[in-house]
């Protein structure tokens, strides 16, 4: 059967996507920040009619047309949108691939008759796309290269076996050649595909390398070129439907165990570990309940996950009974197989399980670990990180004696550059017996910090006759004395 390929090109994909959500009846453009310059990235029809072009500097465009409406673009949303279009295009044929960032390619061999022929298929496609508010150019040919050329340079349909005739008049750029090759060809007077096709093949390769001939052969079908569809993202979920509703927590646990075993086999084969699991329990009255489990470490061992679910399962209200269980790993992480040996101790399983259990009660983000940080500012000499998402590490340098307890600075009544002989703090009368210091710490000028507005600080360790050992500081630029910590 003759292969037939449709190439779809969305010349204004980004702005069409944006304007679908918000109608703008005026010149409009999306901008993209590139090499420190804002440039026009995608324009609507009205903006193009004004003479603006893609790649133009944003400030130039604003100078020419002050009432041009713009918005920064979001390439991630664009690629997601193209992905959605890829899924949509699968209604015409199963073999859909993406072409660059703004095109699709469909291998419709053998599926056109389902829509009443090629012309009807293209008309249907065009009607649906324009109803969705998308500008699209369509090309249909025997080959992917030919369809690409037709979609981008002069829309049209090449009848079976007539690709060369249809694309012969098109410029050489329609062969997907790189810019420099195109320029050279045009400088030599080879403007159209027909000109290129007429040249002897040997001289062409000697002069330009393999590229022009390869692209020409691909467009004419002498070199095969396939459409490769996108892989489906893997889904890790399992479902269990029950003939009779269940209500006991132990029954749910038994069902959950079966689901976990299925899921974990799949995770093991893909060398992945679940980070978040969601158990959906559908009741007979069609309501559903969800139990979420966030794990402190990626896991794929059913025996370890099951007890962690216990607490969540017990809170479920079964109502008149549950007749369907669905378990999904909503967040997975790579967990490669690892060699374990008697010398290297593996990760601390018991601690991770404890963190998971505590996390399901008080939130995984409230369980934190200290990590050292390179700063002299006492409050910033360490950082805190979620224990589930960080590993302990780093060296703790002990440059100076630091208090065990830090609190927000509390002002005391005192003056002078050296610690006061006696002072009151937290309703205690204290008298200085020995003071060690000063240790001068300057604010970090590169960080704005409200607490350090008072400028330099001279820190003193003050040992009082009453026993308490406090960390005082004096701010010479803004005279005042404060207590910020207590030593053990």
């Amino acid at each position, binding site marked *: 059967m003759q292969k037939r390929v449709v190439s779809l090109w969305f010349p204004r994909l980004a702005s069409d996507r944006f304007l679908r959500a918000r109608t703008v009846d005026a010149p409009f453009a999306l901008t993209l920040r590139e090499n420190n310059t804002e440039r026009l990235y995608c324009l609507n029809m009205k903006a193009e009619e004004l003479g603006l072009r893609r790649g133009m500097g944003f400030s130039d465009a604003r100078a020419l047309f002050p009432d041009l409406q713009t918005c920064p673009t979001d390439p991630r949303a664009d690629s997601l949108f193209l992905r959605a279009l890829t899924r949509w295009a699968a209604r015409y044929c199963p073999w859909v691939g993406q072409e660059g960032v703004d095109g699709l390619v469909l291998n419709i061999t053998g599926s056109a008759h389902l829509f009443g022929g090629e012309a009807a298929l293209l008309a249907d496609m065009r009607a649906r796309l324009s109803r969705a508010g998308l500008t699209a150019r369509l090309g249909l040919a025997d080959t992917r290269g030919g369809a690409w050329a037709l979609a981008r340079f002069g829309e049209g349909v090449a009848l079976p076996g007539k690709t060369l005739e249809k694309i012969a008049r098109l410029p050489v750029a329609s062969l997907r050649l790189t810019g420099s090759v195109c320029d050279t060809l045009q400088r030599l007077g080879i403007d159209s595909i027909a000109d290129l096709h007429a040249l002897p093949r040997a001289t062409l390769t000697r002069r330009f390398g393999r590229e022009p001939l390869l692209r020409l052969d691909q467009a004419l079908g002498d070199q095969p070129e396939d459409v490769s569809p996108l892989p489906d993202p893997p889904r890790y979920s399992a479902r269990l439907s029950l003939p009779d509703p269940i209500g006991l927590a132990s029954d749910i646990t038994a069902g959950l165990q079966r689901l976990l075993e299925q899921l974990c086999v799949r995770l093991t084969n893909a060398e992945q570990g679940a980070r978040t699991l969601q158990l959906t329990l559908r009741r007979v009255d069609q309501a559903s309940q969800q139990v979420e489990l966030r794990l402190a470490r990626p896991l794929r061992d059913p025996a370890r996950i099951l007890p962690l679910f216990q607490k969540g399962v017990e809170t479920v209200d079964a109502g008149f009974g549950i007749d369907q269980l669905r378990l999904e790993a909503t967040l997975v992480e790579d967990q490669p197989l690892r060699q374990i040996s008697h010398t290297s101790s593996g990760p601390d399983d018991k601690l991770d399980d404890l963190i998971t259990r505590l996390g399901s009660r008080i939130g995984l983000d409230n369980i934190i670990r200290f990590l050292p940080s390179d700063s002299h500012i006492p409050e910033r000499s360490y950082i805190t990180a979620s224990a589930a998402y960080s590993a302990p590490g780093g060296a703790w340098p002990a440059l100076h004696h630091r208090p065990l307890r*830090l609190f927000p600075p509390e002002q005391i009544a005192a003056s002078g550059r050296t610690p006061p002989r006696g002072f009151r703090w937290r309703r205690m009368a204290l008298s200085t017996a020995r003071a060690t210091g000063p240790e001068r710490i300057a604010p970090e000028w590169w960080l704005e910090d409200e607490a350090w507005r008072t400028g330099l600080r001279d820190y003193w360790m003050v040992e009082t006759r009453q026993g308490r050992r406090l960390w005082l500081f004096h701010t010479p630029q803004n005279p005042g004395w404060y207590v910020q910590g207590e030593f053990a």
Partner: protein
Amino acid sequence: MNNSFKDHFPLRKSRAHEVTGPTALSFAAIACGHGGKGAMWIVESWQQETLNPVGLAPFCDPAKVVLVRADSPIDVLAASEEALRSGAVSTVVAELTKPLGLTAGRRLQLAAEAGKTTGVFIISDGMGSNATETRWRCSPEFDAQDSTLQRWELIKNKSGTLKVWRVRWDAEARRVIVVSEAGE
């Protein structure tokens, strides 16, 4: 019965202990350094006074300490019980702001026994529970030569008599040194 310092400190394992006084924190920090498996330090999340890991470093390795911030006093107790029972850490420190009830104190004690974990509860004066194994009051003392001198009083002891020690912390050897002892 023998009643020397080394009978009481390091703290008896599989038991819950209480500590009060101005330097209770350093007592807990030193207790964290004992036992090989690391420690869990549980506080209420509204507390402005934070544990400073740089200041903790002389007493025990901050990398081995996991800090848990619970929203309510009940959550602190629940997290403590869970951590004590699991046996995943060797020491659990909790800073309590409310007096421990009889039930709560006993549950924590049982959890410590089940998990073979040492529990250290930092309490305010006069807030302790009857179930605790020992209760200590720690206060700093001024000394002309030494800036780590403390007075550790054993004010409740289920298995022995009460006693007072004056101790100091040797940061290089990472151990508590008894300077002198005085009976009550």
